[in-house]
């Protein structure tokens, strides 16, 4: 049961890390890269956000596999 609390903490940490990454790096992307066109900036931001979400889902899937392997022994 403690493992499930740990799993939830990991998921929480992943959500907070994603939020932090989006605020620090993705939100100010236009000014960081010197792009002034809002549509282009938005498209790049959306692309990064989607890649990040897919990456996090893959990471969570790996953690899930490790966890279920150790818990359910299947």
């Amino acid at each position, binding site marked *: *049961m403690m493992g499930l*609390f740990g799993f*939830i903490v990991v*998921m929480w940490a992943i959500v*907070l890390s994603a939020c932090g990454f989006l605020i620090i790096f993705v939100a100010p992307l236009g000014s960081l890269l010197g792009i002034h066109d809002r549509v282009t900036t938005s498209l790049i931001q*959306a692309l990064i956000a989607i890649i990040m979400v897919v990456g996090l889902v893959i990471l969570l899937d790996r953690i*899930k596999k490790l966890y*279920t392997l150790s818990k*359910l022994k299947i």
Partner: protein
Amino acid sequence: MPKSIKSLKSKGQVVKDYHKPGKPDIPRPAGPVLLLGIASTEVILYILTLSNAVLAILLTTLIGFTVGIVDDRKIMPGWFKPLVLVAAAVPIILLGAHGNYLNLVFGSVFIPILYIPLILVIIPVIGNTINSIDVLNGMASSSVIIALIPILASVLLFGNVYVFLAGLPLLAGTLAFYKYHRYPSRIFPGDSGTLLMGAMLGAIAIAGKSEIIAVIALLPAVMNSFLFLSSMKKIVEHREVKARPTMLTDDFKLMASKDKKAPVTLLRLILADGPLTEKDIIKQVTKLAIFSSALAFISIYIQSLFV
């Protein structure tokens, strides 16, 4: 609720509770009576405030309920609920109940266009998340009640007071329903009840600028959906799954399946340490829900430092 239980029983609208000795017949669905209580309060609130956010929440709830009642009456394919629930997100967009900023705990981002596809995803995801946690007595309603406390606190802090007021009927309605849904259940919510609660919760989170807080507060339910989807690799109805994730022992305890083809669910992981009674599993899920709500409150505190 007692009248509804009596009426459903007399009409023969019952399903078996397979986890109890004798498999008793339990009336289902409670969605219509839940909607009656919640929607009537929302209509009064709309008349008093004329707030577009309140109207959007009401319409989203109605559409969520309609999708659920169709599924209650007729067995629909796995894609039906997630796809049709997208329609429940439309009132939020058309009535402009969403903001242009997305709160991301450490600050907010201005995403006026990107927000729209996000809304079309959030409502079906939260609706189905609540729907898929409804596996044991009282689990869906208790999960909603526990998650609503930090969500409403967040709405009051970061959203607006009308959305907060619009969220109170869901809390009151679910609390009243929980009295009859908790172990041992006297009525089941059905898809109409769970999708109503899920769609409304999603609408409150969006209109109240509390999407991330809602995700954190609902982590056990989100985890359950993620585990199921990740092991099935596609959207599929629970009733279509041939290899069951849990099995019932002779002494009416639930135990985790050892079948490799069975989907991994929250319940199966809870039972990995050994068989448990239905009541004990519900206690464990409640503990996880309270823990997630505590994490949501910590996140609200962090967010308050950056506003």
